[in-house]
């Protein structure tokens, strides 16, 4: 990326861009690449125009003028908002909406406790969600394995008595096993999809968590005496 510069300068630039990239998590990959490319171009142009003799001094001056990665991304959005990026997933949106609604009003302790309660509820919901997703996945897998075994050896489960029953979806044993295989496969796919969707839920939780922390910090700050402007 930073190969237009000499060795030590390139290292510094690379480090800066890396820190920038860390701030961009949550944004679509394409947007990340684009901003990195643009900032790289900025650094190059700024570096080329500056007349400072020592290259290391020059790059440090350039980066100092450019500002911290957080400045480049936004000076107005809160870090939690930046983290959330541009992904507009519906459940996330609702969560964010609730949080912001609480927050638009000057937030007191009651707001914080509501946020915390909300947060705990969501955590509980999330836990049960993962439990369901996980058990679907495991059941699906077990079902698939058993079905395949039965396909190979139809009399496998015969000796196991009434506790291990193979579901009879069809009178034909082979067809029955194939059907169970399909059902199991669907179950495990649903499980996988649920798990995959879960990452959005996690992102929403993270967002709420950051927001809550920020608000608590902001609340404590607000109670300290303010510095008056002359």
């Amino acid at each position: 990326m930073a190969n237009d510069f000499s060795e030590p300068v390139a290292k510094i630039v690379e480090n800066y861009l890396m820190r920038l990239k860390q701030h961009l998590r949550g944004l679509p990959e394409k947007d990340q690449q684009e901003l990195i490319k643009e900032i790289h171009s900025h650094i190059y142009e700024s570096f080329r125009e500056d007349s400072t003799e020592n290259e290391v001094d020059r790059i440090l001056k350039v980066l100092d003028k450019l500002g911290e990665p957080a400045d480049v991304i936004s000076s107005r959005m809160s870090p939690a908002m930046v983290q959330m990026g541009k992904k507009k997933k519906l459940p996330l949106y609702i969560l964010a909406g609730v949080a912001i609604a609480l927050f638009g009003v000057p937030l007191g302790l009651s707001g914080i406790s509501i946020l915390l309660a909300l947060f705990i509820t969501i955590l509980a919901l999330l836990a049960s969600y993962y439990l369901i997703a996980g058990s679907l996945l495991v059941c699906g897998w077990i079902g698939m394995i058993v079905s395949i075994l039965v396909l190979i050896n139809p009399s496998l489960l015969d000796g196991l008595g009434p506790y291990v029953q193979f579901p009879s979806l069809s009178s034909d044993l082979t067809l029955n096993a194939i059907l169970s295989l399909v059902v199991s496969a669907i179950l495990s796919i649903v499980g996988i999809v649920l798990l995959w969707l879960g990452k959005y839920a996690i992102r929403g939780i993270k967002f709420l968590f950051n927001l809550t922390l920020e608000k608590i910090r902001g609340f404590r700050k607000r109670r300290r005496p303010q510095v008056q402007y002359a």
Partner: protein
Amino acid sequence: MENKITQLRKGILELAVLGSLHHGSHYGYSLIRTISGESELDITEGTIYPILSRLLKEELIKAEWVESNQGPPRKYYSLTPKGERAYEILSAEFSKLAATVAHAGKKPEKSSSEEEKKVLEVKKEAKDGE
């Protein structure tokens, strides 16, 4: 106070960006150079990028990557028709506001009505009371 100045600058910066692009397309760094003129810009240069991305999202400006004959490609920005209109409206509004602010900062020459005098007196008292 420093904080207040920064805030004021940032608000105006958006209009300055539209104004510079009104005269021709720019990439981020050249835009900063144009806005700050010969002097070094006091605000952090990076703050221009969130402004650009917001204007992009509002479709007031458009962007295009152009190969540079020296170094990496540059992302050029220019005004969209919607942006041109927005600039005209905003700059007219800004001139009006600037005139108002300049006027408000001046000492009133003559207070025409009794009521106005009273208001001034009350203000004075409040000031003396501090």
